[in-house]
């Protein structure tokens, strides 16, 4: 999947051109949430939107989901402009799935009742029992929703998001508050949905999540796109210099180089074999991301 050229030749699922949105606030002054965003999401890719709190991630996604109006720009989601939909028009909503940021609804229903109920809204839903199994809640099928843990609750939210068999699934910060194990198994679920043909758009704070899942990431800050790229190439990461560090006489030495292999080879000769406590590293996605956000703040 991780192939930008292959993706670029693919069918467009979402296209945004020149999107802007300002929240009117008489007391504190208007807040520009989205300030001219352009992006495309291709069919069957996992597209991550990264950015600090208040960067405009949720606003952008909520405009795509048809929850919010925009001020200007063009938006197409599966060929439809969400702002042009009437409340009675249900065919487009059949084709998208939404996993909201936080929900506490239907606490008194069981998992099974809830998923079965939501299946009734769609023209061609998936099998509820299979969906419950797919998100790993079979053991909890007959438990009241209020008894679920945070991670289980989010899995139920995903089940409700995919019960209609959506072509696009939107996930807004899906793994906030998960323990590492729950996060890993959640990622597996998202990959499985992709393998079944779903296009996935997710917002996240977690760089490791974007790196593990996304085919491409968009970094948004202060309502603007800073870069759209694969996680490997973001911010010129693939071309960034490597860092070779080791101990010499008990003191850590660092070499920053374009040719780490040569550096290690030379050091190996010098030490006559093993280099003490050798570490070769490249900037992590987090390093790149933080330097991007910081460089904009300094402007």
């Amino acid at each position, binding site marked *: 999947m991780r192939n930008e050229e292959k993706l670029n030749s693919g069918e467009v699922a979402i296209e945004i051109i020149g999107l802007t949105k300002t929240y009117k606030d008489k007391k504190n002054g208007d807040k520009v949430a989205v300030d001219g965003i352009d992006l495309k999401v291709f069919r069957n890719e996992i597209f991550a939107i990264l950015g600090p709190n208040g960067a405009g991630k949720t606003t952008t996604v909520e405009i795509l989901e048809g929850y919010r109006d925009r001020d200007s720009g063009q938006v197409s989601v599966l060929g439809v402009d969400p702002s042009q939909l009437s*409340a*009675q028009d249900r065919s487009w909503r059949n084709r998208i799935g939404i996993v909201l940021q936080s929900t506490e609804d239907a606490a008194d*229903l069981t998992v099974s009742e809830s998923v079965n109920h939501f299946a009734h809204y*769609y023209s061609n839903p998936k099998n509820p029992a299979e969906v419950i199994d797919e998100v790993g809640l079979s053991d909890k099928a007959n438990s009241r929703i209020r008894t679920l843990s945070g991670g289980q609750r989010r899995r139920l939210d995903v089940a409700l998001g995919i019960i*209609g*068999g959506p072509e696009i699934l939107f996930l807004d910060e899906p793994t906030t508050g998960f323990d590492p194990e729950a996060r890993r198994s959640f990622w597996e679920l998202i990959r499985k949905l992709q393998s079944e043909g779903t296009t996935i758009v997710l917002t996240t704070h977690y760089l490791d999540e974007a790196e593990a899942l996304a085919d491409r990431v968009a970094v948004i800050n202060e309502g603007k796109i800073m870069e759209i790229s694969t996680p490997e190439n973001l911010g010129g990461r693939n071309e960034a210099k490597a860092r070779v560090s080791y101990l010499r006489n008990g003191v850590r030495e660092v070499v920053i180089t374009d040719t780490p292999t040569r550096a290690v080879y030379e050091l190996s000769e010098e030490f006559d074999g093993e280099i003490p406590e050798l570490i070769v590293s490249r900037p992590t996605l987090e390093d790149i991301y933080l330097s991007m956000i910081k460089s904009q703040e300094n402007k």
Partner: protein
Amino acid sequence: MTTNLMHAGFAKNPSVLRVGVLRGGIEIKQFLRQRESVVFTLLFPVMLLFIFGSVFKDTIAPGVTFSRYFVAGMIASGLVNTGFQQLAITIPMERDFGTLKRLRGIPMSPVSYFIGKVILVTVSMLVQVGMLLAFGTLFFGLKLPTSTELWLRFTWLVIVGSISSTILGIAFSSIPKSGRGASAVVSPIVIVLQFFSGVFFVFSSLPKWMQDFAAIFPLKWLTQGMRSVFLPNSFAVREVAHSWELGKTFLVLVIWIIVGTIWALRSFKWSDK
């Protein structure tokens, strides 16, 4: 791409009415599983009936004890509890919990949501009015009407009263700022209206300003209407207007239905942002 992408657009969504009926079922199921809602909405008025009915047994007119007067008022209050109070408290909670946002994001017509609410209100109203009628008759000297005319009058009062109560509850749901605070905003309004409208006291003995204030709102008219059904016809002369004023009652309720509909259409909020 797999086959699950292929089906979109081929099958039809279930009808708005069918989804509305399904929502009604799920609303009732959730209602019955929330102990607070069962106690607060259904049992509380019955408890009040027992407390007031047992304490105030004075005769206020020939053949009319206060408890009988009170039961008529509580039946009118039942329409306000199950419609206005229930919806004005639970809809803001649904907004806080994300229920409304989720429903807005799925292929459901908003009409289906309101059909579900109407079913919930209707069922809880019928249960509540049924219990009040049963306990009132068994313990507090309530006499069920014997003529068809009075039953028909009771029926239209219940229907028109419930419609206005439901619509005003939906309209008012935009006022509480949070789900948690909704009950603190709504309950006092209902209790004050009950005091002013002749539920807890005999209406004709209240100060004039209180009577005038209560006459703006539906509850006063509903209690008076219920008295016309459950008290002897001779009691009419003891009303403030010396008559049951049924035509005026109908008019006031219909005006509130129109006002409430316009208000609800303009103000209903699916999310708090």
